[in-house]
């Protein structure tokens, strides 16, 4: 049951007031993702005593510190490994990971691919701002070609990592990508991700005016935010145009980043399979003992 109607009420319920104000710069997208997550939690009516947050290091990874709930702010890139332990010890808890493109797709990439492959029950919210925001603007592995970063002063020549695509290929149960300027679909998506057993990835494209926007001359904060609307397209629209559109229409959308739900399947989660395995072996052992008698 949704009792809360306004953002103020929502914040009062979920934010840890003592940590206010946040470290976030003006125009940073991270706070919006937090807000979406709060709405999803509220609408699902989850017992917050059974929700645990984990994060690595980065501006995005600061989010658990602002939430009035249990959280583990871990080392750079390793949140998913810590979270696997949390989940193993508390199988009926919801484990939510906040991570960044650097944290999740760069230094922590190995944990990500194996957790997705094993379909470990957790919800990973990766905020992709194309940059290492916290350390002042080094190139992230998700940065579009041509992006300017302190480590790519003449434009990025490395092909960006499409992390949602990767998660799909690894067989994650739920994979979606959204922006931060349209609340409804992302909130719905976070809810779906949270309710899903197995591995869910929610990738958010979020502006970092300080370390990315400025350097890439994306204009003031308003223009920078508009960049995301101008350069993204819903999967359904993209597919329609690619199928039925004119050549001109196709050329217009071909480089846009697709938003939407990429994968929604029902493979058993790791712990579900694990429990079944344990049951099967126990049963076998019991039978063997009975046989001896």
């Amino acid at each position, binding site marked *: 049951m949704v009792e809360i109607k306004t953002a103020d009420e929502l914040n009062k319920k979920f934010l840890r007031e003592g940590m206010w104000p946040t470290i976030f710069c003006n125009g940073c997208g991270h706070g919006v993702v937090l807000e979406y997550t709060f709405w999803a939690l509220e609408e699902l009516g989850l017992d917050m005593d059974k929700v645990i947050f984990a994060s690595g*290091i980065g501006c995005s990874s600061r989010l658990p510190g602002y939430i009035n709930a249990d959280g583990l*702010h*871990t*080392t*750079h*890139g390793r949140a998913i490994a810590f979270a696997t332990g949390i989940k193993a010890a508390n199988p009926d808890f919801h484990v939510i990971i906040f991570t960044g493109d650097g944290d999740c797709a*760069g*230094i922590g*990439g190995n944990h990500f691919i194996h957790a997705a492959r094993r379909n470990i029950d957790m919800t990973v919210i990766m905020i992709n701002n194309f940059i*290492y925001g*916290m*350390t*002042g603007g*080094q*190139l992230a*592995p998700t940065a579009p070609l041509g992006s300017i970063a*302190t*480590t790519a*002063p003449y434009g990025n020549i490395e092909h960006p990592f499409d992390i949602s695509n990767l998660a799909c290929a690894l067989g994650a149960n739920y994979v979606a990508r959204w922006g931060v300027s349209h609340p409804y679909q992302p909130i719905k998506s976070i809810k779906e991700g949270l309710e899903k057993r197995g591995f869910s990835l929610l990738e958010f494209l979020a502006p970092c005016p300080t370390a990315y926007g400025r350097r890439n001359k994306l204009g003031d904060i308003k223009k920078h935010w508009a960049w995301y609307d101008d350069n993204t397209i819903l999967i359904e629209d993209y597919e329609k145009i690619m199928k039925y559109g004119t050549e001109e229409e196709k050329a217009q959308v071909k480089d846009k980043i697709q938003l939407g739900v990429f994968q929604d399947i029902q493979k058993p989660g790791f712990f579900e399979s694990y429990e079944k395995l344990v049951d099967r072996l126990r049963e076998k052992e019991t039978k063997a003992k009975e046989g001896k008698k």
Partner: protein
Amino acid sequence: MTEVMIDTGNYIAAKAAVMCKPDVVAAYPITPQTTLVEGIAKYLATGEYKGEYICVESEHSAMAACIGASATGVRTFTGTSSHGLLLMHEMLHWAALARLPVIMCNINRVVGPGWNIWADENDSISQRDTGWIQFYCSSNQEIFDTIIQSFKLGEHEKISLPVMISYNAFILSHTSMPVFVPNQKDVDAFLPNRAPKWKLDPDNPITFGNIILPAEYEKVRLDMQKSHEYAKKLILEISKEWKQRFGRYHGDLLEFYKCDGADYILLSMGAIGAESKAAIDNLRKEGLKFGLARVRCFRPFPKEEILKLSKKADLIVIDRNISPGMEGALFTEVKASLYDNTDAKVCGFIAGLGGKDVPFGDIEKMCKKVINGKARHIEWFGLEGV
């Protein structure tokens, strides 16, 4: 011609590294190291640095890339801090045991959890046993000079070991000071090209890191130990040569300050070492006979010289690190150096953890507490009744 450059510890370190012409630099950013490697990148852009610069995806990879490059016989440099250094730990052992002279700056920063970016020496102290030579600097000039000296030391044929040059986060890394920068020709004359005895070479194939049986392995360790012992002599020679060529001297393994006729000698490292000089000046003005032996080189450890000091004076040690369950690491090492050979008293203080400031006034308080006979064997300054 020598020029004066006014800049932060990190940019000064970048300048020194580039003047040594490393063939490969591989790095991953972490506060407060970032501006050091950005500084090198700038020299790459201006053409002043002509080597390869690799942006990797973690510190573990940064050190692995340096090891790979170094194994081919070229000169390598990197920098890191805190958790970056900890993530490198496996590779630190590797570099040292493979006898590859990778040169690295480590900006001493707090280890988490309890995330904090300020000065604390637990990061590098906890790498004590990796086989790296470890220097601790107390000014930007010393950072500059020590980096260049370290290439000569680490790459020397009797040493062949990696060297870590540590300096405190922000207090040095982000603070500007004037530094004398010699001209390139003089640096070239001081620093010979690297000439390793063995390297990956298609004309003479060898394999690094092969399987080795116990008896041989022990010899490898003994050889490493001998090189550390030899480094004690070489550090002396290199510091002397540096003084002759460039007119500057920061001490060798230790830097002695007003130790003549001292009744008490303070031992400290890094930025606290610099602050200690001001404290000693003030104590001397009051007629109190204090001197300072700033520990510049922590590995190899100057145990013989410290034993000599203890024959003339009692010792006071300040540690910006803690080995939980024991005490400050420098304190332990100082006492081990004296074992059974001296009557000197030794008192230890833990101070400045988590980046807490340790100004000279506080150091004077610690010293006075010792003279007044009120200091315990070991105590935490500011937390335990000082």
